[in-house]
């Protein structure tokens, strides 16, 4: 078999940069030219650092793999600051539904520092096998290092399906993994099922700001990969007495190329729109930035987060991290209360997945009322305080 990575000798100037970035001591200089030895894992770090395009990776010829050799449903066990992300339970829930149709085991890939406890938690919720790499050098924000480990585990274990969260980490890490394995990846799915005789993963997702839905298959490549939109699938409940195997894998860990200087948490209670069950959003109808205090008060009274329309953010009334919609966040809370938001298509794109949408607007012809499940036509400066008052009673 031809070597998958090669040095183009007439381009190499022998600068040695590739030696410095290699985590495997797989490059040396011989006669002022880089030479790659058998320790190379084809991670690509040297390709990226070379300023002379002198190192090239020859990927496998692009055709479907032997799909029969792949079995099982695997998921990426995302975690932050020592806790499994809540999307993981939702993915386990989805995987357990798929397992009914597919009759395959559920596995999870868990990489990070001090993750043993999370491995046990995964098993308790129905994961049959956990493939774990535990090492203090694996950082929370290190897609580079994590995607390398995930790729290696997938290539070795060969699951037919690999699912991750449609979170900031998942949507950053999985595309890297898919590009390295050369398989299909479907973003931000809202529905997963098993299709027909070939038992393929049927992946349904919104596109075009939720105006259309597309169902996507990946027939010839494995694993079939998808990220799953947060807060759409039902969280798995713990399975009493479920037994699983935790396998600790000993894999080389890349040197991180990205260094974390500082993590700054924003006030959890009103900003974390991704996790919030209740969201109260304000728009242009608030008329003045200080009126966001009213929105905040209502949000606080129901334990919810504060959202905003683009108009309110562009006016500088509230930071961008609160923006819901096409150029902001996509949210799926249980209740979304839109106050003084007209409901432009771009705003609807970000919140139409909410279970219940409530609109409060003085204009009865505002488009928000066509999407809302419940509406009050009225002055929000009267309606919102009344809501706060009645909710306190």
């Amino acid at each position, binding site marked *: 078999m031809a070597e998958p990575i090669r040095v183009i000798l007439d381009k190499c100037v022998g600068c040695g940069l590739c030696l410095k970035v290699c985590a495997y001591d797989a490059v040396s200089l011989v006669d002022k030219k880089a030479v790659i030895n058998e320790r190379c894992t084809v991670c690509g770090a040297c390709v990226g650092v070379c300023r002379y395009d002198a190192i090239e990776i020859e990927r496998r010829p692009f055709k479907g793999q032997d799909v029969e050799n792949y079995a099982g449903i695997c998921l990426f066990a995302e975690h932050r600051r020592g806790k499994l992300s809540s999307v993981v339970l939702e993915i386990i829930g989805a995987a357990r539904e798929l397992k009914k149709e597919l009759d395959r085991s559920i596995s999870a890939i868990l990489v990070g520092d001090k993750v043993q406890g999370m491995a046990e938690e995964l098993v308790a919720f129905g994961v049959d096998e956990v493939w774990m790499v535990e090492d203090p050098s694996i950082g929370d924000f290190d897609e580079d290092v994590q995607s390398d480990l995930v790729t290696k585990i997938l290539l070795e274990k060969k699951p037919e399906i690999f699912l991750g969260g449609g979170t900031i980490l998942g949507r950053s890490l999985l595309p*890297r993994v898919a590009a390295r394995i050369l398989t299909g990846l479907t973003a931000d799915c809202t529905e997963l099922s098993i299709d027909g005789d070939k038992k393929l993963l049927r992946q349904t997702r919104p596109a075009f700001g939720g105006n259309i839905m597309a169902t996507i298959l990946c027939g010839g490549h494995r694993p079939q990969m998808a990220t799953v939109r947060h807060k759409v699938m039902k969280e798995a409940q713990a399975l009493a007495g479920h037994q699983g195997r935790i396998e600790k894998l000993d894999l080389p860990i890349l040197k991180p190329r990205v260094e974390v*200087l500082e993590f700054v948490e924003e006030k959890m209670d009103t900003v974390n729109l991704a996790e919030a069950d209740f969201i109260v959003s304000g728009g242009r109808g608030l008329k003045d930035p200080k009126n966001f205090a009213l929105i905040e008060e209502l949000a606080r009274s129901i334990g919810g987060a504060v959202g905003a329309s683009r108009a309110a953010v562009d006016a500088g009334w509230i930071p961008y991290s609160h923006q819901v919609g096409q150029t902001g966040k996509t949210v799926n809370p249980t209740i979304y209360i839109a106050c003084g938001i007209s409901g432009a298509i771009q705003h609807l794109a970000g919140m139409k997945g909410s279970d219940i949408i409530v609109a409060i607007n003085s204009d009865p012809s505002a488009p928000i009322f066509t999407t809302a499940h419940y509406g009050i036509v009225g002055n929000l400066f009267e309606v919102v305080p009344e809501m706060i008052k009645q909710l306190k009673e």
Partner: protein
Amino acid sequence: LKIVVCIKQVPDTTNVRINPETNTLMREGVDSIINPFDMYALEEGIRLREKHGGSVIALSMGPPQVESALREAISLGVDEAVLLSDRAFAGADTLATAYTLARGIRKIGKADVILMGRQAIDGDTGQVGPGVAENLGLPHITEIRKIEEIGEDKSIVVERLLEDGYVRLKTSLPVLLTVVKEINEPRLPSLKGKMAAKKAEIPVWSAADLELDTQRIGLTGSPTQVMKIFTPPRPSGGKIFEGDVQSTVAQLIAALRDAGIAIGQKKGEA
């Protein structure tokens, strides 16, 4: 600095309508625009050049008409533009697109910073950026809201938006960054820019111009297949509560509680 900004031409969704009879998306008569997130990437690229010197190159893959998006990029202040266009590229999913763009960036050569928007508003995937980085063997950081500084030593410090806050990260060039709206406020085209856009020659590179594996581009190189596209059921319209403020609010809260939502009854669980 050599900065490459990847942009995508997308239909302007402000004008997208749903055909009420067929319940399908009506794309006809819809203008094409530069993907809004890519406008922030272009602006950031231009700002980096203004601060650090160098050049900004806009790159796009798509049918010949995408040239107009690239001209617009030049009118905003980009120095050069390149279009990757070939029938063989058509039908590319995110994997094949990332591969093709990466080959284009490679041909441009020696990029220090590659910028993209966090996602395109038609596909909404956000997968191409990390995919390009992987193909180039570069690190990538998504959801950038601020580039704090680029040092003499080619180090770069950025702020990345997360679900529950943000993180400051440091890496070294070259790097691929995807940006969010918060990063800047895009400028309007200048008169000089418009003149430059009119005159600019935009090279079109076909598959034959890029060193690439033809098995990995376009439809052939795309593992995912769209099985069907449908329009989600429209909401049937909701209940509008009538009456004075006190009564409408009472009805609303009752309706929510009837729907099984413990609103205002149980606090503090977010």
